[in-house]
């Protein structure tokens, strides 16, 4: 550390400067906490794009505040000469490199997240088999809430070597798929038409987005996939349930039996 000149750089720090720096850091932390609390609260009252933009602004605000805090604190503690800066950042790089490698990895990935935006608050993502809505993006990790209301913390570092699926990618358009298996030997064209009606007449359907009824002959029967967009991504569970229930009613009316795997194994 001495070789880096860190000792010289830190020798000029006075107790007054430390108090001042701590005050700035505390103030910045309070500001970040307030933003993290208030902005999502306001966003919950809005809908559509304003909600998404407001949610996405939280990590950006935080990044700006952190950068500004660093810019303010460093000159308070040390004289901002080239040698001093080199000493401090060199020491910091060493410490991060050895002691907090994974933490630094996630921090950097967090910054990349803000720049590349592979996910934003409000997005529905799947990573490592976990699916949920991004609730918050922290400096080190993101929080998602699953459909079962479980909070999962995902370190940003996972981004480097994992596949990430983003369902709505910053928009409020999220395609949902209701799947059902029917006994073969029925009028497929008619069932497709009826299922299409089911989708269009479901009040939760965004009818201005594509609607598709796909069918595939499998060894488990005829597999139908009803694909459409719900009014809001948050409606997905209810939407899929509605589509499935309404499709079930159609099958019952047409006397086409629905099948499931347990039945096949019998």
């Amino acid at each position, binding site marked *: 550390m001495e070789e880096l000149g860190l000792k010289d750089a830190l020798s000029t720090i006075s107790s007054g400067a430390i108090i001042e720096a701590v005050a700035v850091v505390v103030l910045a932390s309070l500001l970040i906490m307030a933003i993290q609390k208030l902005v999502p609260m*306001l966003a919950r*009252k*809005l*809908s*559509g794009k*304003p909600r998404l933009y407001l949610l996405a602004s939280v990590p950006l605000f935080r990044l700006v505040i952190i950068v500004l805090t660093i810019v303010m604190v460093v000159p308070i503690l040390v004289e901002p000469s080239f040698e001093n800066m080199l000493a401090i950042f060199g020491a910091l790089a060493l410490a991060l490199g050895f002691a907090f490698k994974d933490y630094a990895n996630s921090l950097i990935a967090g910054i990349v997240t803000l720049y590349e935006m592979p996910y934003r608050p409000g997005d529905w993502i799947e990573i490592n088999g976990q699916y949920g809505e991004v609730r918050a993006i922290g400096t080190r990790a993101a929080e998602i809430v699953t459909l079962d209301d479980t909070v999962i913390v995902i370190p940003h570092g996972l981004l480097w070597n994992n596949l990430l699926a983003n369902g709505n990618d910053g928009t*409020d358009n999220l395609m949902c798929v209701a799947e059902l298996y029917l006994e073969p030997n029925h009028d497929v064209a008619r069932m497709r038409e*009826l299922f299409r*009606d*089911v989708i*269009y*007449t479901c*009040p*939760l359907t*965004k*009818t*201005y987005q594509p609607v598709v009824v796909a069918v595939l002959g499998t060894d488990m029967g005829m597999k139908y996939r009803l694909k459409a967009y719900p*009014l*809001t991504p948050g*409606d997905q569970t209810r939407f899929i349930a*509605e589509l499935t229930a*309404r499709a079930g*009613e*159609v099958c019952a009316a047409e006397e086409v039996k629905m099948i499931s795997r347990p039945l096949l194994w019998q």
Partner: protein
Amino acid sequence: MTTETDNEHPCLPGGLIALDQWSTPDVSVHKTLRAGLKDILEQLRSGLTPESEAFESLDDLPSLSANKLKRYAPEPDASALASAILEQLEALRQQGAHNREVSFVVAPPFSGVSDALLTLPVRIIEPPANLSMTEPDADRWWDEQLGDDDWVVPELANFWLRHRSGLNLLKSFFARVALDSTGRGIVACSSWCWQFWVRYWPEIHVNPLTPAPLDSGRLTGWLDFLARGGNGRSLTARMTNDGLYVLPPKADDSKEKYSCFAQDLANAARGNRGVAHAIWQRALRAQPEQDAEQGEGEASAGNTAECWVVPFDQLSLPGVPQGSGQQAGLVLHAILLHSQLTIESLERATGIANRELKLLLSRFLRADLIVQDEKTQAYRPTPLGYPAVRKYLQARGFPVDGF
């Protein structure tokens, strides 16, 4: 595609145009931003004032008496509008711009087209009591209805229900119209209904027409025409805050200064004549120094009547109760899709339980967003509440009309 000038059709300014020519009245970036911010603030404020949704005027000037209101801003003459529509269709036929047997007029709610078609001396096709028909039943029903004589369908939105068993009647109808095998008729279709069906069946090609949107120029011309009411007496309307003129329409050599109220009105109504007319009626005031009933004689004596107009920011239009949850949107959307719905039909279209529907509907009634028809018991939107409802639905991802 317009064929006549505005002066030749004062009750249908701009005439009938193709759907893709329709555009909202021009609005400045400043006003768009202001309106956007106002919307966001209203949404944020919603939790604080949940019950202040109904119409209220924020000024204390005396309103016009019913008589004066009837004289200064009377309801449009439906039969005159019907004649104008017929003339327009005929002119378009002669030009070769419209050659279908069935004329489709797609219009936003409150355009007056449905009422106008009801006044035509031709056979009116009313919707059947049961909208849930099988395909063969629907075909048979149309076979009985569509003959060789001329006919009109005053509102196509009343012929279907957003339920899997409520589509067959319109499927059968559109198939016949596509084949031109229906005889000669005119169909009025709500823009909301049209929006659904054009997505459901993108292959529908019926060359629909629509009344041109009312920009500020057309709007002042139309309001002036209504105020004259055929007796030639013009109306002078000035702003209560700065005395600037709204009516009569600005002449080329006019030296008077004019207010931007007409432009604000056209923008707020998105060029919709029914909505603009309803707001206009609420904005008119008696002269400040007179009360509502005074001055009747004086006003009738001259050739020009005079009244005052409240600034736009002093008119608080009805708003949608924000804390209603998503069910509110489902109900309002279903009502707009079908123009009007009874509670039983609403139950089928939305899947919401009767008891919950009653609670929501009573809230909307209190907020002046809907009214209930005493005869049919059906709920339909109000022109004053319509802009707020449309905005509410659009913000929540619902499919809205293009108007």
